[in-house]
């Protein structure tokens, strides 16, 4: 069952690549949060109670509720819904993301020798998620889209850290810190400040400084 959740998590990235409505991206973030919680449940047996509680709070509260709710609020306030002028047509976005995901599966299964408790599936999906997210950040023009790209990348990293949670729970806790960092700083301060100053959240406004 854990594998099914991981595959579902990988498929959410394809949906991300093929849509431009920010509201559906936020809904998908909720979905990713729940999936990460379900995947995390499988490592609870090996962890201390405190670590398990920490993981639950992180995945269910921070990832599933707080961050998407915050993004939704920002979205409402800025009245922006569709990501304007994506650089590449959706079909190609979907195609490239699928290829990256496929490459993730293939590389993880046939090329590298897995160590520790890492299953190739965990590794492949996590890496494909990180790469797709980084790529999506570069082609999107809206700050909220960029932030969502960053959060999905962070979700991918979290998935990777979950795979070694049994041996080193401290790493997962470090990953949680990264989440808090985004929630507090990037969302809380900068998105609001940028919106106030520029009355818009298009990245093209932020291109004054150059040589």
């Amino acid at each position, binding site marked *: 069952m854990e594998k099914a959740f991981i595959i579902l998590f990988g498929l959410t990235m394809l949906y991300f690549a093929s849509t431009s409505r920010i509201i559906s991206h936020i809904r998908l973030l909720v979905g990713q949060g729940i999936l990460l919680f379900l995947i995390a449940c499988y490592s609870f047996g090996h962890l201390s109670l405190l670590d398990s509680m920490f993981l639950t709070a992180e995945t269910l509260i921070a990832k599933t509720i707080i961050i998407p709710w915050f993004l939704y609020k920002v979205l409402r306030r800025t009245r922006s819904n569709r990501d304007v002028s994506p650089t590449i047509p959706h079909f190609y976005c979907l195609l490239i993301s699928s290829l990256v995901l496929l490459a993730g599966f293939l590389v993880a299964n046939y090329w590298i020798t897995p160590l520790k408790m890492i299953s190739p599936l965990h590794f492949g999906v996590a890496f494909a998620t990180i790469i797709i997210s980084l790529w999506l950040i570069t082609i999107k023009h809206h700050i909220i889209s960029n932030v969502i790209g*960053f959060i999905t990348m962070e979700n991918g990293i979290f998935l990777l850290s979950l795979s070694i949670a049994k041996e080193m729970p401290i790493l997962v806790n*470090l*990953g949680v*810190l990264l989440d808090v960092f985004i929630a507090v700083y990037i969302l809380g301060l*900068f998105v609001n400040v940028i919106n106030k100053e*520029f009355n818009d959240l298009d990245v093209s406004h932020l291109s004054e400084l150059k040589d």
Partner: protein
Amino acid sequence: MIATILIFPLISIILMAIFKNKKFDNLMLNACGIVHFICTLFLVFTNNCANTSYFGVDDTNKIFLLILSFVFMLVVFYNNGYVKNFKLPQEQIRNYCFMTIIFVLSMTGTLLSTNLGISWILIEATTLSSAYLIYFNKTKNAIEAAWKYVFICSIGIALAFVGIILLNISTESINSLNFNVLYTHAATFNPFWLKLAFTFMLFGFGAKMGLAPIHFWLPDAHSESPSPISALLSATLLNSAFLVIIRIFKIMEIAHVTDYARLMLLIMGFVSIFVTAVFIYHIKNYKRMLAYSSIENMGILAIGTALGGSAILAVVLHLIGHSLAKASFFLTSGNVLELFETKRIKSIKGLSIADGKTAWLWILSFLAICAFPTSLLFVSEFIIIKNMIMNEQYILCVIFVLLLTIIIYGMGKVVMKMAYGELSEDKKELVELNREKLSAWMYIPQIILILLVFILGVYIPPFLSEIINKAVIGF
């Protein structure tokens, strides 16, 4: 002493929050600078410092700590003159002092930490605290710079975290991020995963260090932040990230996978110098020019580390020389900005007429940074070039010298154009008014820094020489 250096800033922040007094804020900032320096002297020059489980001094970080502490103290002194010219509410100035202290505290923690996880968290903390300082002027450009800084560095930090996870995978049975434990067992690590981990960590921490091609935040952040903060960013923050890279490189060295690590560092180093040479040629903003120069010097550090051998001594010397010279350069750029109220190179002429002392500091800082003998940077760059020739890397050597020459020409052109020439009539009035803003605090730190750079080029006192030699062995 480690406790004092880490706790004193926290106490001063609390006291500042309680007393809420303008003079007291400044006093505490000065006290932080001086206490930090005294503690550092104790930590560096006495051997009886009790290391805690997560923080400690060793041969490698001593020199970094000394540089941070010394530059911080002088920046704080400069700040005494600089803060007087702020026309801002007291609350905002207090936040500035707060954040400066937290910024330096997180850098100190990064340098002292003996655990990769703690270093990673504290590098993240430097981003948090310095982003506010970059955004301090609250202009549109400052927001843009701060946003790019936070976003790029966050991605860097996230990638570095992937590197840490991969490093943990490569260690097989060792579940610790303590540097000493990692060094002890490094020979048993899986080379494939270790190489992958190094790539991610180099890109992650390299983003913070300002290595090309992930340097895009650096010119924006350095040019938009207040000048004392630019000096701290360039002279100390970049070093902190470099220390983490050095420590990871050491793991690679012990695990015998240095060829790969050296190649990566060499490529990034040369790309950094190349990027600087390309951009500095048509630069329009003098603070951005200094920022690009930082990218260049970080590139030289990466190249020196990659070359190894005698070049390691050059790296340590370059680290010291660059931090001192660049701090002086950025602080002087603060004086220029106060005088002319613009960062555009085109709008500035006749600095020597406007203010002779600033003009001299401006030119001397340039000479120090462009490795004019007897600058310490001359010695370090000379050793690197000699190392390349001894290793028969002639092509690398030619490219290195050529790129450095282009950079020196680009910078020299700007510095001379700004320093000499006639002062236009409209600027004369402005400069007359603004000259009174420059107090003695805004000259003395740079004089000390420049004097040191030029003296250390010919004479390194034995106590410092010992620290440098230990650092070379510890690298």
